[in-house]
C-alpha cells in the first residue's frame, strides 16, 4: 500500500516492502517477477511472524494507528443512507463523537461512535477522539431516540479517554458518563458495541454498555491508558510498554475475563492495511448478531443485559 505508515516493530518489514516496490519500479525495464515473488513470500512470512507474536504494547500501537479505520470509515463501507445528527440540545455539538441514522442491510439503525482525525487539522477538530460531556449527552439523546422509534443501536468505540479539561469537568463529564451507563442498561432496543481501536476508560464505557460487545483483534480496552497507568504507578509516563503488559488490555486478555463476546479477526498486518476487508468482517458480525437480538423482547434484552454485566467480577468470599 502506498503511503504506508509503519510502526517501530515493523522496521524489517518496511525495508523489505520498500525493496519490493523498488524492484517493481525496475521491472518495467526487465523481468524481475521471480525476485519479486521471492521477496513477497518472505514479506508475507515476516508479516505473519510479527503479527502472531505481538506484545501488548505493540497491539496498543496498532489500535492507535493513524490509518486505522474510524467510525466514519465504517459508516461509508458498511452502511447506507447515513444521515448525521448533531448536538446534545443542552450546550453544543461534540465532534469527538458522531452519530446518526443509517441503514444496515437495508434496515434502519442508529449508529454512534468516537471519531478521530487523520491530519493535524482534523485531529484538532475531533479533539483527538476525546469527548467532552456534550458527546456523551448527544449519544444518549440519539440512543433514546432510537428507543422511541424501535431502532437497534450500534456503537463504535475508539477513544484514548474522556477529555481532561476544565470545561469538561465544569459541565459534569462524570455525571454525563454515569447517566449513560444507567440509561443504556435500561434501553429496550438491541445494542451492539464494537471496540474498534482504543477503548479508553470511562470515555469508552459511556457508549459501551450493550447486549453484545465485539472487539477487533488488535484493539485494546482498559480502565486507564498505559501511559496514564505508568504515570501513576511509576511516576513515569514513558513506561507505557510495562504498564500495557500489566493492564492486559488486548482482545484476547479481555475475552478470557468474559467481558467481550467475540473477537473479530483483522487482515494480516492490521485493519489499517485493508479497510474493505475489515469492514466486510465487521459487517458480517453486525448482521449476524443483530439477527440474533431482534427476536428478543425489550424486557428480555434489559434483563439479559443486566445479568451480563452483573457477572463481571472476580473475588472470593
Amino acid at each position, binding site marked *: 500500500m502506498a503511503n504506508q505508515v509503519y510502526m517501530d516493530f515493523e522496521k524489517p518489514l518496511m525495508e523489505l516492502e520498500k525493496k519490493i516496490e523498488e524492484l517493481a519500479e525496475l521491472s518495467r525495464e526487465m523481468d524481475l517477477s521471480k525476485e519479486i515473488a521471492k521477496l513477497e513470500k518472505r514479506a508475507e512470512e515476516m508479516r505473519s511472524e510479527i503479527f502472531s507474536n505481538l506484545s501488548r504494547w505493540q497491539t496498543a500501537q496498532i489500535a492507535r494507528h493513524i490509518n486505522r479505520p474510524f467510525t466514519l470509515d465504517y459508516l461509508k463501507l458498511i452502511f447506507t443512507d447515513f444521515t448525521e445528527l448533531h448536538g446534545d440540545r443542552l450546550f453544543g455539538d461534540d465532534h469527538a463523537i458522531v452519530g446518526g441514522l443509517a441503514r444496515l442491510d437495508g434496515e434502519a439503525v442508529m449508529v454512534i461512535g468516537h471519531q478521530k482525525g487523520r491530519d493535524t487539522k482534523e485531529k484538532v477538530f475531533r479533539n483527538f477522539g476525546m469527548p467532552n460531556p456534550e458527546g456523551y449527552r448527544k449519544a444518549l439523546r440519539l440512543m433514546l431516540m432510537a428507543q422511541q422509534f424501535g431502532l437497534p443501536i450500534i456503537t463504535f468505540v475508539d477513544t484514548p479517554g474522556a477529555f481532561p479539561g*476544565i470545561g469538561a*469537568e465544569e459541565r459534569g463529564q*462524570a455525571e454525563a458518563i454515569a447517566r449513560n451507563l*444507567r440509561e443504556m442498561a435500561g434501553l429496550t432496543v438491541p445494542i451492539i458495541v464494537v471496540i474498534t481501536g482504543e477503548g479508553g476508560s470511562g470515555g469508552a464505557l459511556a457508549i459501551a454498555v450493550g447486549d453484545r460487545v465485539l472487539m477487533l483483534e488488535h484493539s485494546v480496552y482498559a480502565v486507564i491508558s498505559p501511559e496514564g497507568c505508568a504515570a501513576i*504507578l511509576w511516576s513515569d509516563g514513558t513506561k507505557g510498554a510495562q504498564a500495557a503488559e*500489566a*493492564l492486559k488490555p488486548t482482545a484476547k486478555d479481555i475475552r478470557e475475563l468474559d467481558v467481550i463476546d467475540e473477537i473479530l479477526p483483522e487482515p494480516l498486518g492490521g485493519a489499517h492495511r485493508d479497510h474493505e476487508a475489515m469492514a466486510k468482517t465487521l459487517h458480517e458480525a453486525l448482521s449476524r448478531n443483530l439477527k440474533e437480538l431482534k427476536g428478543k423482547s425489550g424486557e428480555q434484552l434489559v434483563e439479559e443485559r443486566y445479568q451480563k454485566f*452483573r457477572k*463481571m467480577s472476580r473475588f472470593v468470599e
Partner: protein
Amino acid sequence: MAWFKRDKAPMAVKDEKKVKVPEGLWTKCPSCGESLITKDLEANLNVCPKCGHHFRISARRRIDLLLDAGSFSEYDAGMVSVDFLDFKDSKSYQSRIDAAVAKGGSKDAIICGSGEMEGLKVQLAVFDFSFMGGSMGSVVGEKITRAIERGLEEGTPVIVVSASGGARMQESILSLMQMAKTSAALAKLKAKGLPFISILTDPTTGGVTASFAMLGDLNIAEPKALIGFAGPRVIEQTIRAKLPEGFQRAEYLLEHGMLDMIVERSEMKATLHRVLTMLCRVAA
C-alpha cells in the same frame, strides 16, 4: 536566606528533659494550621472547631455517625479481592491486598449493611479510603450492587458514602465494568421508585464519580470535598494552565449544578432523615 546566622552549635537538650508528648495527642489542621487536641477533635466529629475543615474519617466512624446506635448489621464482610491478572508494579497486587487487610480495618475498600436512621430502615455502603485509596475493584462493585439489590428486595432507600480515588487499576477492565454494573443496578432501583442518595466526601474522583456517585436522586457533599473525574494534576498537565481557585471542590460543583447541597457532618444524619421520609412518604 536566614537573617540571623547561628555561630555556635545549638545547645544540646538532654533526652530525659524533653517533654514527652504521646503520639497522636495533638493533630494539626491541614487547612488553618491550628493545633488541636485529638480527643476534642474527635468529639467534634473530626471537624476543625476553628475553620470547619472536615477531616477524613473511617468507614466505621461514619456508620456510627449516620445510623442509630446498634442498628447496623453488616453484609458481605468476608468478601476479598483476588489478583486475577497477576498485576505487578513495584509490588504485586496480591501483596498490596494482603498489606491493606493486615491493617486490621475492613477486608476491602467498602463496608455495607443495613441499619436504621431515626427508625427508618436504609441500606448503607461506606467507602474506606484507608484501604488502597478507596479504589473500586470487583469487591467494591459487587458489594454496592448487592446493597442496591437488597434495597430492591426490601423496598428500602440506598445510601452510598463515597471516598475514593476511582477505579482500581490493578483489576484493569473488570474495575471499569464495576461502573457499568453498579449503574445498571441503579437503573432498576430508579424504575422501582426507590430513593438513592449519594454522599460525596473528600475525595471522590475517577470511575466512582463517573458512575453511582453522580447518580443520586440527591447528590450531597461534605464541605470542601474534592470531587471530579480527571485528577487535577492530569488536567493541569493536559491544558498546561493553572486551575481556577477552588476547582473541583464541593462548593465549585454546587455552583456548577452538580450537587443538590453541601451538608456539614454534624447535620448529615438529620438532613438525610428529613429528605428520605419525604421521598418515602413517611409521616414526620
